[in-house]
């Protein structure tokens, strides 16, 4: 039996969920025994396989048109889409800006912040992705499994990966369930 292919990517997050994934430590060897780890931010391959993967994992919320594009591509190319961590599940810390609006957030970051000099200006370039309201992944594409947590605990990630590798949908509840 071939090992199921797994790919991951990060959107508007802090990389903490991927760090938590790495916190499974030596158990990562068990994971690679069970799955074929493809494109991830921590491997060389940068895009999920064109002919598809079984499990696609997304960290981070959707904060701009580029995030949207990445999320849609992952959805198209995977059978089971996992939203990993509070940003992917709820929008998370970046979603705080939704209460103020994009314009106010940009102004605060690039002009008003104490660390800016007097020449601070909001970057604008046609090559830059367009900023949007921060959305949970399931607001943009269908999500099959939500693993909340900020970040989800390494044990939860390990449990989920093993279950997925063995063809089951993990049940995230009781001690596994933390929104932080």
């Amino acid at each position: 039996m071939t090992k199921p292919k797994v790919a991951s990517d990060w959107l508007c997050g802090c990389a903490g969920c991927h760090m938590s994934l790495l916190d499974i430590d030596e158990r990562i060897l068990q994971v690679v025994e069970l799955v074929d780890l493809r494109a991830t931010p921590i491997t060389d391959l940068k895009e999920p396989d064109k002919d598809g993967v079984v499990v696609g994992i997304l960290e981070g919320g959707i904060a701009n048109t580029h995030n949207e594009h990445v999320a849609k591509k992952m959805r198209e190319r995977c059978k089971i889409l996992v939203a990993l961590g509070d940003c992917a599940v709820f929008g998370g810390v970046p979603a705080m800006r939704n209460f103020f609006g994009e314009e106010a957030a940009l102004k605060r970051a690039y002009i008003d912040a104490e660390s800016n000099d007097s020449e601070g200006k909001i970057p604008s370039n046609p090559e830059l992705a367009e900023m949007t309201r921060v959305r949970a992944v399931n607001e943009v594409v269908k999500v099959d499994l939500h693993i909340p947590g900020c970040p989800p605990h390494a044990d939860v990630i390990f449990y989920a990966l093993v279950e997925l590798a063995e063809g089951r949908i993990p049940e995230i509840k009781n001690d596994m369930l933390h929104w932080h």
Partner: protein
Amino acid sequence: MIKLTIDGKTIEVQEGTTVLHAAEAAGLYIPTLCNHPQVTPYGGCRLCMVDVEGARTLQPSCTLPATDGMVVKTNTDKVINARKFVLTLIFSERNHFCMYCPVSDGDCELQNRAYDEDMTHWDLQPNWQPFEVDASHEFIILDNNRCILCRRCTRACGELVGNFTLGFEERGADSLLVADYNVPLGESTCISCGTCVQICPTGALIDRQSAYQGKETEVDHNIGVCVECSVGCQRNVLTRDNRLVRIEGEWDAELNHGLLCDKGRFLPLEDDRSRVLTPLVRKDGQLKAATWDQAMSAIASGLTQGNGLAALASTRLPAEDLALFKSIFADGLQAELVTSLEEGKTTATLASLADKIGKPFESRQDELKDTDVVLVLELDLVEEHQVPGFFIKRQIPEGIKLIVADGKDNRLAEKAKVRLHLKAGQEGSFLADLLKAIENGIEDNDLNQAAEILKAAEKPCIVYGKTLAENADEKTLTTLLEIAQTVNAALIGVKGEANSMAAAQLGLEAAFKSNGYQSAFILLGDDHPSQKLVKRLEEIPFVVAQAAYYSQLTGNADVVLPVTMWAEQSGSYLSLDGRLQTIGKALDAPDGVLTSTEALLKIAEILSVEPDTDWKTNLMKRVPTVQIEEA
């Protein structure tokens, strides 16, 4: 009695019982959010929906009275789906992002209920409507963004505390929790009792002191009596890593059932006085750090005995310490004066009247919870002894009549039906007139009106303050007793500090007069010394102070012994209405600091006194003004 079936279980309950209570009585769990055992059911959150056979829709169990033959199901798919949907709606209404909330992961009832339903996410996205955070209050932060509109706080503020500060403005999704007519909480009529914070199921009302300092799962709980006044509320002192995190009212306490005032809840955490951490002995005019042994020998050589020795103890100390103190200084050292820092002012006349009558004449504070007329004499229950004040204030909308007699500004008087002027010092004639008004009527409309109200009352209470207790002679008190007997009223006197009544029982009630004392021993504990005391001690050549904190008093003393503060010691307290309660040690004392008991025993040893440690027998010897009951 009626019979109903819940989840196949037949349950027999009193008519009028809600389905929720019936289920609870049968040991069945129905999740709730807006419901709280201490306030009237509201049916606002819809989390407790149940399936009732024959009913058109799901019904909220917290407000639904059980009926005979009712068949209820609490765990059908329909119910579970509704529950999840209700939670989703609540989450989507405001800013319920757990990762930046101080009550997340254990202390949030909303989050816990979602966990119970195995919710990994929300299907509805939040409404991104921001609300201003009100951080104007000294202790409390009001964040409408976290509010689930359950109205536990408004019900607690009104129904439990009788303050009616919190309320709601606007409707639906715009509903806004506000203080008074939407003024900043810090400028409102809020009295900082903190009940709203304690009852809030989410992070909408949090206290500044404990936010982010430790979650429920990370703190230790120490339930015990509050030592800030003589009411005797039960508190839950939360500590973490040997530090005070928060103080809560104990919901299960018989008297205060969760209520506390600002003095009991918030102010103890604001104490920023410097601790005495080592014994100090005066040498060449200077107070210098010393060992316990050096301090003891300084006491052995400097403290006189018998005539010329004055010993005073704070009534904030446990009864065990007060009794030990008395045994050492009165029986052992035969000191000329052995008394409390209160000098029995608020208790001596009352205690001697009890001695004379031979039985108690005062009542429990619980009488105030269900009364129809309250006469308050020289006491502002909004300012001091606040919790019994809550009992009175919260019944005012129910029509109880309040009569306030005082010569000073009295915030409770705003709510009074009759306001009488009672000038301090004229208690005797005032009460005599009131008695006359009750018996025959006199030429004073206000007094007559008060008398009529008292006479018509079914369960009247008379509460009197320190001023009356201090100024009244035996005759005045006899008149008061006669009034109480005539109108069949419960008498409640607030006395002084936490252990004022214990001091009275031990006979620590002599007045401290300048008398050319040679030496003095002050058992201060964590009390604040008055200016008057500091001044008087200046005349005494040798002063020993047992104190937790530096003060002018310790600065002037010749020997200072470092002792524990309230949270570092255990002991017993006799409330104003005779409930004997205990407080346990919640914190470890700093190294080198002893409890007052340990320090007293050291003194007894160095002065070769054999103290009597049977404090309880000594406490019970005297006829109390109110029946003593061990809690």
